[in-house]
């Protein structure tokens, strides 16, 4: 993927040369004052030492990665730097001077900007109002629509300042977060897993924005567990494992495997990309499916058609908010009012069928929202198994088979490596990645022939993501089929046989993976596929 970026963005090399490159920051800058330096940061939570003597130094204009698995302590470290929580021990130096950050306002006053992984936006306010609220009282004029429009234009954020955040998709909200951080004109910008929801084109734009900011002297702390991105973007990389600094390295001089080993502490196998192959009989067919935009949403579905055949994985790429949510609900059966003939499941019309009937036909769905939709937060895992279990298996003579449910939950915990205290642990108590493993496992245990999954590995750590992808490929080998709706292009290209793109509620033709390239994808994401041969 790195090649694509370089090819698309011809100016990148020049810009990087202008900014002196990493060698400068390593040697010459080592003498100079660091923009941010952390010494011996320690933070103890009940039962877990989140940060244990972590040290980190970021030079002006440096793009510095903080790499680590989920739970390695990245988020805690970031919250300390942003003044959200106070460390138990350790020192923070800002431009060489020790500082104490008591609140995020202190951090913002120093010039630290932050883009959160989990959005901190007011849904009932507009983009412009959200940005204004993030600014100090005296600087609110930076949040007016004209100056925002120029920021949006400059960094290609594709947002309307007067749009209400509640109407925006996840991808768009992420860009509002970025916009809000940029409006404060930060000297140090922290990004926490920013690309997990960005499209291919948007990520390329983000990276060139970040490089541009770095060349203007802004330091960037880039939190991620995506190795390829870090090697592509960052000058230096601090690796955290179980709350400790393992190493600080130049990511470009290391192989991806070596970085992964540093992060995980043991060598990992990269997923073997399966060879693309011709599909079998069609399992799921969608023909001319159109649905009006539901109230409060901008995009409906426009004449969507595709066919999913046995033994294949079909990817649906595209920025979120282009109708993916509606497509998912229409396929899972949650959306009512789908024309009966528009969806065929196992060769039968299925548009009028509800989720239970579709499950009986062999379709399983994994929604993007794991907590509250894929699972009931306050119910134990055993009861969450019941959520999608066919009634015939769930009951015996009308009574719930409670022991059977506990055993089923225990089996999922065991087989899919879910970290849970017990099969009765409430879903709420699981981390995002573990809950996703549980939901994926639960649906796979239902022996689906067709699996529809939205963002199956979003926010999931590397090891778990790999296990989930392997499971999807296993389903394909067993003669099933999967439809993956994802904004993560790398993931789609890694596991899908064919990929289609959603834009503006329409779906492009699906193209075999080996014939896709970045040009086609970025053109398709803008909705221009009419002239391309499928």
């Amino acid at each position, binding site marked *: 993927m790195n090649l694509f970026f370089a090819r698309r963005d011809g100016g990148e090399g020049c810009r990087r040369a202008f900014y002196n490159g990493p060698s400068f920051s390593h040697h010459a800058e080592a003498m100079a004052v660091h923009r941010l330096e952390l010494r011996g940061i320690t933070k103890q939570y009940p039962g877990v030492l989140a940060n244990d003597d972590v040290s980190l130094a970021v030079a002006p204009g440096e793009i510095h990665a903080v790499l680590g698995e989920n739970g390695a302590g990245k988020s805690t470290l970031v919250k300390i730097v942003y003044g959200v929580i106070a460390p138990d021990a350790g020192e923070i130096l800002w431009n060489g001077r020790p500082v104490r950050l008591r*609140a*995020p306002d202190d951090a913002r006053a120093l010039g630290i900007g932050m883009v959160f992984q989990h959005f901190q936006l007011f849904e009932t306010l507009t983009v412009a109002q959200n940005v204004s609220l993030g600014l100090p009282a005296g600087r609110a004029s930076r949040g007016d629509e004209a100056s925002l429009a120029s920021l949006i234009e400059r960094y290609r954020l594709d947002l309307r300042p007067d749009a209400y955040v509640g109407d925006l998709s996840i991808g768009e909200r992420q860009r509002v977060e970025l916009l809000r951080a940029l409006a404060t004109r930060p000297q140090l910008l922290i990004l926490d897993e920013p690309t997990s929801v960005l499209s291919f084109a948007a990520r390329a734009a983000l990276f060139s924005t970040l490089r541009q900011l770095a060349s203007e002297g802004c330091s960037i702390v880039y939190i991620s567990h995506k190795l390829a991105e870090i090697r592509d973007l960052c000058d230096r990389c601090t690796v955290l494992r179980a709350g400790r600094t393992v190493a600080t390295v130049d990511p470009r001089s290391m192989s991806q495997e070596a970085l992964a080993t540093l992060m995980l502490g043991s060598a990992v196998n990269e997923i073997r990309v399966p060879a693309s192959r011709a599909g079998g009989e069609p399992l799921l067919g969608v023909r001319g499916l159109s649905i009006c935009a539901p109230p409060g949403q901008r995009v409906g579905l426009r004449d969507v058609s595709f066919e999913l055949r046995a033994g294949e994985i079909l990817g649906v790429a595209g920025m979120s908010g282009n109708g993916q949510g509606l497509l998912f609900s229409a396929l899972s059966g949650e959306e009512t009012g789908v024309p009966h003939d528009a969806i065929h499941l196992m060769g039968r019309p299925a548009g009028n069928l509800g989720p239970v009937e579709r499950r009986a036909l062999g379709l399983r769905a994994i929604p993007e929202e794991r907590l509250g939709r894929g699972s*009931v937060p*306050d*119910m134990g895992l055993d009861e969450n198994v019941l*959520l*999608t279990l066919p009634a015939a298996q769930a009951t015996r003579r009308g*009574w*719930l088979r409670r022991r059977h449910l506990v055993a089923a939950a225990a089996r999922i915990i065991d087989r899919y490596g879910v970290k849970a205290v017990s099969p009765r642990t409430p879903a709420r108590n699981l981390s995002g990645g573990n809950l996703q493993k549980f939901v994926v496992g639960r649906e796979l245990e239902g022996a689906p022939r067709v699996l529809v999954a939205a963002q199956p590995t979003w926010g999931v750590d590397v090891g778990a993501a790999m296990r989930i992808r392997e499971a999807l490929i296993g389903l394909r080998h067993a003669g099933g089929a999967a439809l993956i709706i994802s904004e993560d292009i790398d993931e789609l290209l890694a596991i899908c046989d064919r990929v289609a793109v959603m834009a503006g509620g329409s779906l492009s033709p699906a193209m075999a993976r080996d014939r896709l390239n970045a040009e086609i994808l970025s053109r398709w994401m803008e909705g221009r596929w009419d002239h391309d041969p499928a």
Partner: protein
Amino acid sequence: MIQLEPRVSASRWAAWLSPLAALALTMAGGAALFALLGVDPWQGLRLFLVEPFNGLYAWGELAVKSAPLALCAVGLSICFRANVWNIGAEGQLVAGAVAGAGVALLAGPETWRGYVCLVMVAGMLGGMAWAAVTAWLKDRYGANEMLVSLMLTYVIQLLLGYLVFGPWRDPYGFNFPQSRSFEEAALLPALWEGTRAHAGWLLALLAVVGAWLFLSRFHAGFRLRVAGAAPAAARYAGYSSRQALWASMLTCGALAGLAGIGEVAGPMQRLTSSVSPGYGFAAVIAAFLGRLHPAGAFAASIVMAALYIGGELAQSRLGMPASIVGIFQGLALALLLLGDTLVRYRIRLRHPFGAARGWHG
């Protein structure tokens, strides 16, 4: 400045301790009230804490009062679990009393002894019909069930008034607004000689066990709980929210209707213009005190029944106003809500300047 911060995980222990603490504080508040009114606090509290449990007759009274409370509270627990905010159990109770009384008045001296079962069924159907009005308005027009169910309570009370002042008035009743006494065959049998306890209490116990099993051991109960706890998950699973609405409303209507006819065919033995001293509303408090669990609701109903009895004793023995019961009920509910807030949130005291830089990052 005081700020509320959500706790990372609310303790299960605290969730059950909160009602107990609320009751203890209610008693403390009651003691303070008595002291202010110039009554020895212990003498006042005795009427609420000791007298209702003192002797066989007192236990009978407790059973008489807790039966309708428990029936309504169990029904309301099911509604609230399903995220259906029916607060009109009082109206459904009255509807059950009216419908059941209509059937009971048809019985004559020669009627078969099991006729009372028919009366009970009629009461349940009456309550269900009244609940169905609310369910239908919500289902069909999206009307707010809280308002509709509450307002319908006043409608049925007017209908009850019309009946006992008009067509059903006892011609030999000295113009009192009440029907004639029911025949023996239409009355619930007494449980113990020497008390007023009647078979309605057994029906309440049956409802508690049934609701408990329904919610925890049956698929339909599970679907209902999912619909209440996570509507998006219910849609994803394919559970119908309409089904949850109708099932919970009709169940609550049936139980509240049974409570109503149980009152009329039990201790009252005739239909009067005031069927219930607000059992349907007190049951809302009992349902929450009992953590929306049928067994909890049952235990809380006994507590609420003791409050009613204590209030009556306070009126007759200490000359307190009738509103004393309302004060105790209100205190209990307010303190319970406060306790539940503290279970889920912690209080942070912040420096005024610190509060200004609150974190909205």
